[in-house]
């Protein structure tokens, strides 16, 4: 019998092994994750996340689920928007990342956020529970992306908003060349120097290349049932924000 395979960066691996391998990557980078994000993106990840929040249309009293929420950047901003009458759930499949998120939010004085360890492919919440579901820089690590988008659709209320912030494809030739060189030559080296982990950042560069481009991801969102999906290219398309509405 042929074993089902999927990609892990540029490697072809058994489907059931990918989740564990991704977990290994994030276990390794968890305590340096924020620092590495700042260094590798020259701080731009803060602007991308700020734009995501501005686009979310979240208001006081809303219920928000942040999937693969890691160190809690989005959850913190959502918590301020929904206020005491709302609810924010910060979730991640990786316990080490979730612990970092909890520590970060406590250190920054944010209270009221709930923490749940979960897989985006099997979200343990009832149908039509949330006004907004977000996933930032997490979808490319999910083994079955279509299943994850279907699950996010299921837990969203009618009229709810899906936000997918993820690395994508730039069509600016010069930027693409620079980005290619930077991703495969500089990023892993910085990973080695700062986080003592070259392989994880080599995986990061590879996983970005394997991720669906803007139009493909938009179609995946529509195929999952969303009545509307549009995307906003950020930093020339290096990152894209897909916004889906459940109508």
């Amino acid at each position, binding site marked *: 019998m042929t074993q089902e395979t999927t990609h892990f960066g540029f490697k072809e691996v058994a489907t059931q092994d990918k989740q564990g391998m991704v977990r290994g990557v994030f276990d390794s980078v968890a305590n340096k994750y924020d620092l590495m994000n700042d260094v590798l993106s020259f701080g731009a990840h803060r602007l991308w996340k700020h734009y995501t929040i*501005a686009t979310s*249309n979240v208001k006081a009293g809303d219920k928000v689920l942040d999937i693969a929420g890691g160190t809690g950047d989005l959850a913190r901003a959502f918590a301020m928007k929904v206020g005491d009458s709302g609810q924010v759930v910060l979730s991640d499949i990786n316990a080490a990342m979730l612990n970092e998120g909890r520590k970060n939010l406590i250190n920054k004085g944010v209270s009221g956020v709930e923490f749940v360890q979960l897989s985006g492919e099997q979200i343990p919440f009832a149908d039509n529970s949330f006004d907004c579901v977000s996933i930032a820089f997490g979808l490319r690590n999910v083994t079955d992306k279509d299943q994850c988008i279907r699950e996010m659709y299921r837990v969203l*209320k009618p009229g709810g908003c899906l936000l997918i912030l993820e690395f994508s494809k730039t069509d600016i030739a010069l930027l693409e060349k620079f980005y290619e060189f930077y991703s495969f030559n500089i990023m892993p080296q910085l990973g080695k120097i700062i986080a003592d982990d070259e392989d994880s950042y080599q995986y990061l560069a590879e996983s970005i290349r394997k991720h669906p481009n803007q139009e493909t991801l938009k179609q995946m969102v529509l195929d999952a049932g969303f*009545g509307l999906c549009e995307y906003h290219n950020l930093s020339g398309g290096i990152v894209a924000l897909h916004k889906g509405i459940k109508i």
Partner: protein
Amino acid sequence: MQAVILERALNYLLETHQIDVSLLDGKVVHFSLQDLPIEVGFVCTNTRIFVTTDTSTIADVNIKLKASVFLALLQGEDLTKLLREDKIIIHGDVKTAQLLVDLLQQVDIDFEEELSKYTGDIVAHQVGKLAKKFKSSDNPLTSIKDKITTLLIRPKVQ
């Protein structure tokens, strides 16, 4: 980016004026201004409005009008009268269009007052004056171009 700004502004107005959009729940309205490069979709759902630039979505109603007619609508002009005068083109569900107009007419906002919070009184007043000139013109873009041309050819001598 314009859609994001418009969406935030609209939802801010809904919240501050406590306007209920539930009558329009699930409705999609395409809206375009004939004399300005503005073409957006409004999706009213979950007690808020989403603004999209993706106008390929099937809409319940398509509304086309000039900027000055839009401002007239905001100030309480009757939709039926504007339709009769061919100042507004509506394709699709007129009832949805009427509901949207009713909703817009509930917004009573002093733009100068709101703007002055960010820019100060003088700038807000000047912008307000410009907006009034813009509103009184049938073709605002041409009017602005004409005014700039006049200024460049015959600058006022003090």
